[in-house]
């Protein structure tokens, strides 16, 4: 067998040691962090008690996942959780909010973006719907089953079979459109008839009495999304309503939404926006009793840093969602140092009780390290028979002579060894100068390669603006004469650039 030629491999397979997107994680290794994963999955399973549609099920405490240090796999664990729960949950990944006054608005906007993600990686298709599509179909299908089961179709002699079909295959029934059977058309006809629509709304109210009189509004929005083609305008209007934005008159008319249900206003205060956002989130979760529960994951909490207002708000969000929102499980990840020294001390004591006892992440052992290294090397085309050469006679065992370590630490040392085996200097004697334009291009390419990173984030823009305002000469936030809003202004000589958000 020929000697392995690491020089032929152009990509260092160990350089990718940070998870930026939980739906795109590298393969896990046997046993590592299985116990913490199992614990969260078990907590989620409590929400699945009984047959659909379910009564409201109260949430367990927010599952607190603690990493002893950076690099033990918090985001990777969330990725595994997403894979494990797959189509059992509506999965919502949340990055930190920046404005404590509008925390729910931020959570809602991110939720709306996450609802637009497909159930599985890849393009939207009949068998791989967007999360909100599956959700809307699921709710409508079970409601149609209620309609039939409660005798609203006299003379129809296959009620029992139809109810069973609608409940067991809520997504598939929408695709049955043969000559003798078109559930799509029949359900559509119920929504078109004023009388039947009211019956559906009253059945929804009977199942979920806490929608605050918005049953008809929710039904119009779910129908608009479920019955619109991909990228159809009905979907856009539905999502606009979910986000709490005011609908234009023609948009409301398009989905037959009453003006009373079009609550969003252009001049809402921060408090009104926040309140409406929470109402929408709570509504989604209550409706989840018809289909699948929600999983909310608050990740990257280290970015709350030492900002007491943000941390306090995070605590109150966890408290409120625990106390008032059913059919959901909240997960919060944190590094131990951040949790004990920054987050926990600033969270109100009664709110601290809404977090579970810490679920701690594990270190990687030598066997798991071998598996991870092997997977990464094979993924870039190394012949599996040469993997042992990478471990070397002593390299791997020596690395573990001082005990286990974080997965990231192990990957970083493997990346270093890979560079050495490729004949590169372990540490460059003199760092090569890289132009800022090239660094910028690299970052742009990284973002382009991951669709999730391209989604608009109000919080990211706010963070960016604050950083700019803190550190760059000529940057300031000011009110423009004659307008109600503030803008970030970058004054450079005789030019000014305004940032709008």
């Amino acid at each position, binding site marked *: 067998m020929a000697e392995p030629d690491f020089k032929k491999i152009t990509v260092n397979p160990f350089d990718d040691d940070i998870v930026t997107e939980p739906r795109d994680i590298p393969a896990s290794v046997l046993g590592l962090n299985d116990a913490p994963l199992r614990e969260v999955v078990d907590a989620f399973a409590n929400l699945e008690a009984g047959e659909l549609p379910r009564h409201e099920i109260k949430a*367990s405490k927010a599952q607190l996942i603690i990493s*002893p*240090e950076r690099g033990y796999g918090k985001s990777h664990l969330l990725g595994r959780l997403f894979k494990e729960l797959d189509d059992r949950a509506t999965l919502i990944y949340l990055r930190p909010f920046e404005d404590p006054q509008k925390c729910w608005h931020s959570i809602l906007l991110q939720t709306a973006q996450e609802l637009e993600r497909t159930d599985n990686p890849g393009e939207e298709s009949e068998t791989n719907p967007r999360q909100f599509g599956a959700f809307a179909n699921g709710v409508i299908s079970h409601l149609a089953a209620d309609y039939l089961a409660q005798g609203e179709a006299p003379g129809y002699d296959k009620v029992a079979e139809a109810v069973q079909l609608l409940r067991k295959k809520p997504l598939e029934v929408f695709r049955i459109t043969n000559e003798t059977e078109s559930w799509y058309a029949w359900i559509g006809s119920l929504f078109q008839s004023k009388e039947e629509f009211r019956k559906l709304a009253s059945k929804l109210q009977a199942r979920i009495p806490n929608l605050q009189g918005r049953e008809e509004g929710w039904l119009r929005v779910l129908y608009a999304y479920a019955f619109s083609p991909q990228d159809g305008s009905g979907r856009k209007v539905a999502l606009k309503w979910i986000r709490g934005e005011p609908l234009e008159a023609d948009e409301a008319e398009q989905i037959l939404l009453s003006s009373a249900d079009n609550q969003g206003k252009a001049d809402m205060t921060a408090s009104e926006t926040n309140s409406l956002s929470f109402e929408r989130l709570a509504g989604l979760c209550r409706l989840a009793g018809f289909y699948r529960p929600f999983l909310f994951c608050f990740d990257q909490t280290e970015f709350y840093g030492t900002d007491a207002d943000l941390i306090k708000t995070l605590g109150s969000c966890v408290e409120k969602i625990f106390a008032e929102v059913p059919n959901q499980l909240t997960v919060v990840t944190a590094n131990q*140092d951040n949790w004990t020294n920054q987050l*926990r001390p600033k969270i109100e004591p009664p709110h601290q009780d809404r977090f579970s006892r810490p679920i701690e992440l594990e*270190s990687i052992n030598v066997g798991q390290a071998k598996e991870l290294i092997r997977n990464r090397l094979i993924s870039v085309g190394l012949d599996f028979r040469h993997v042992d050469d990478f471990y070397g006679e002593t390299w791997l065992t020596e690395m573990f002579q*001082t*005990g*286990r370590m*974080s997965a990231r630490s192990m990957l970083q040392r493997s990346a270093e060894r890979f560079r050495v085996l490729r004949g590169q200097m372990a540490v460059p004697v003199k760092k090569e100068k890289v132009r800022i334009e090239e660094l910028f291009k690299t970052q742009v390419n990284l973002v382009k390669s991951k669709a999730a990173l391209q989604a608009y984030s109000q919080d990211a823009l706010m963070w960016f603006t604050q950083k700019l305002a803190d550190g760059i000469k000529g940057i300031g936030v000011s009110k423009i004469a004659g307008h109600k809003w503030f803008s970030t202004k970058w004054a450079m000589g005789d030019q000014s650039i305004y940032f709008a958000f």
Partner: protein
Amino acid sequence: MTDLYALVFEAKAKGISLAKIRDKSKLKDTILQDELRRLRSEYQIAGPFKYGRGFLYYAKGYEPGGESVARSIEMLIQHTRNKLATKSQVEEKIRQPFKDFFKDGVRLLVATGRAVELKGGASSYLLHIDAARQLFPNMAAMTAEGEKAKPSLLKEQVLAAYHSLKSEQGGLSAVSIGKLLNRLGCSKEALHQFLLEEARGENADLHPTTLVDLSTEDREGALPIPGKSESAITVTFRE
């Protein structure tokens, strides 16, 4: 659902009866039994231990056994100086269901060199090594050399300090090496050497950090790890 582990953990060494768990958790019997079984299988709690007419559950580390009773005995005899207590006097102060493990606790203390049994007439007395050191100050210098040959002595102390710090931080496992050092009052070299050996023996995990804004205590305890650029700031002992 009620966090059963938190319920049991709060009771610490007092333990908590099944009736009280049922009462506080308000869980149905089948769910309660399943959850207790799960916590037991994950070694998070121990029990049931018969006590009176009922049964008690304990968070792991607090359950009756040689180790926990040895710690209780140590608390009672550590600072007696020349007023030695008889074994039966000490035993009287240990409550059930821990009392059943009294002999095991004494055996463990003697075996690990933390106490000796002294005979006087019909009675047996217990003398703790710290009490002996207080009586014979010169003994400290002699034992400093002896400690190298008896790593188990240091291990008991380190583990006791580790568990106490872990408990103070709400059960989080990664404990600051600097805090451990201050709690033990031993030399940094001895503690570092000990922790490295425990990590090599797969009994402990050392966690290097990239943080720069460390507290003085954390910085002082930092343990340089051969072959790694960052020092370990915290340690986790495996259960």
